[in-house]
């Protein structure tokens, strides 16, 4: 399978803060990745480095094998945090802006996205649209570029449930139709539960977990047992009550003697890794 994004030892330092360090992962073509982590984990920084918007302090990003160096690769579209748009432009003018800045702009694709749900009024100013419609316009602007890789930075923030659903449907249509690879960041995992097949968990600027969700889930289990006993497993994190210990562990496929085993679900997994990353310091 073709590797779309390849990140090696990536680090980014802003004046005083180390936003990212030692990040390494690869994502295959056609994957939809949930980039999850608490606020300030480095999600936006990571996306802007992949998009070539910012330059890394160390390491490399490759997109389709070519190193990203201070310019957005032609295959990449970024929907930046806050969905920035020129408020004074109409929807039609915004699309014309996309055409002006991209030699390979597809007005047909942009129109498809604008008409996919309730059709967007092209003569309305972007500043006068509802948050949901603005997201639809922002997605049309992103997808009109016919990207092979879309990077979406918190695309669902401040959207009501219906608009979230609509935004994800627009995006998934592109994945279904064109085999687009997507990375979607959110500090809420629940937003992305159904649409993602890969998970990239970030905390404190480091990759805590990366992989195909099904594999990752199959590789973990939740073990419950007496508080004072030891278990022969690689423990990710554990919580204790007076009598009982609950832990997230890598492996074992069967429960150790005296322990109860359950499959891990995504939310437990993410929480377990975040707790582990907290406890490290």
């Amino acid at each position, binding site marked *: 399978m073709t590797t779309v994004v390849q990140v090696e030892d990536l680090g980014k330092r802003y004046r005083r803060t180390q936003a990212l360090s030692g990040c390494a992962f690869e994502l295959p073509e056609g994957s939809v990745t949930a980039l999850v982590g608490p606020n300030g984990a480095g999600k936006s920084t990571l996306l802007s480095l992949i998009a070539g918007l910012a330059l890394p302090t160390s390491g490399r990003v490759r997109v389709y094998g070519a190193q990203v160096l201070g310019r957005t690769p032609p295959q990449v579209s970024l929907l930046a945090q806050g969905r920035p748009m020129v408020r004074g432009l109409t929807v039609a003018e915004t699309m014309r802006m996309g055409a*002006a800045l991209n030699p390979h702009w597809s007005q047909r694709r942009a129109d498809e996205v604008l008409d996919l749900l309730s059709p967007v009024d092209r003569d309305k100013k972007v500043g006068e649209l509802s948050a949901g419609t603005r997201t639809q316009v922002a997605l049309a602007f992103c997808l009109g570029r016919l990207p092979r890789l879309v990077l979406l930075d918190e695309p669902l923030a401040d959207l009501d449930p219906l608009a979230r659903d609509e935004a994800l449907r627009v995006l998934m249509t592109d994945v279904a139709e064109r085999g687009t690879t997507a990375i979607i960041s959110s500090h809420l995992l629940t937003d992305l539960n159904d649409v993602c097949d890969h998970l990239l968990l970030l905390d404190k600027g480091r990759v805590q977990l990366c992989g195909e969700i099904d594999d990752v889930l199959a590789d973990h289990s939740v073990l419950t047992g007496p508080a004072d006993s030891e278990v022969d497993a690689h423990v990710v994190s554990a919580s204790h009550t007076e009598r009982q210990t609950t832990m997230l562990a890598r492996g074992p496929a069967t429960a150790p003697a005296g322990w109860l085993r359950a499959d891990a679900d995504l939310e437990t997994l993410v929480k377990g890794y975040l707790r582990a990353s907290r406890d490290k310091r």
Partner: protein
Amino acid sequence: MIWLAWRLQRAQTWALLGLAVVVVVAALVLRGVTLSQVDPSCLVGNINYSMPCTRQWGSLGAVMTYFQLLLVAMPFAIGLFCGAPLFARELEQGTHVLAFTQSVSRTRWMLVKAAVAVVPALLSVLAMQVALSYWFRAAGSLGPYRYGPWSEFNFPTSHLAPAAFTLAGLATGMLIGAIARKTLLAMVITVGLFLGVWFAALGTRELYVSTERVTYSAYGGGDYPRIMGAQPIDSGYVNADGATVSHLEASALTADCSGADRTQEDYTACYRDNGLVASYLDYLPAAKAKTAHLIEAALLLALAAACVAGTARTLRRVA
């Protein structure tokens, strides 16, 4: 792309072109008024301060000065309202990300935006300059040109100066906007900095060309030389060895020359006795203003080019 750059700054551009049209029309109308109101004999030859002439002239001189000041202020306004927001607004609102993540390189996008800002700015300033000069020339010896090409308002409103100052103002504003990333802050800094550039130019332009010297009788009085359009730079006395003596030293030397009933000849003799054989005047002749214009324009263009390069560099580092 040109359409887009135009669309993003069309408000300022329309305002600018509108102002230029108003000024051009006003200048043409006022030229007509000037010619019909003032007798042609007042406007030719030497400055005519005769009563009928000054009465007819009325407040035209003040009106001309206002228009001239407006032209002087245009590069400031252009730097302020067109240059500073060019990138500051995008960076402030976060919309720069839109342009920076497309297929067009940042430098190319910057150059297109700058070009779309420069062309109407230059056009409007040049139109105003031509119209005002057409009017002022009609006003002949009563108009502002009687102060010569070196005067502090004539110089920056003629020859290459308006265009050069406009380019420098626009480029300075653009650079500061890209650095400050806040429109209002950038506007304030642009005005402050450009004021500095303006006064630096005012203070140095007299040094670009060499002065010429005339000498005349030591105790000047009546035969003080009148040179059309010249800018006096320095004056004093010359002693028998040909060395210059400042006014201060001279007044110490000639303390005894004053007296109630002394004639012109007495003074001249007294000065000569004290070693002051002649007065001198160092001045910049009108003809040399052209050279100064070229040098100043070259310096301002260099400043503008440096600002453009600085903006490109700054934008490359923006995340």
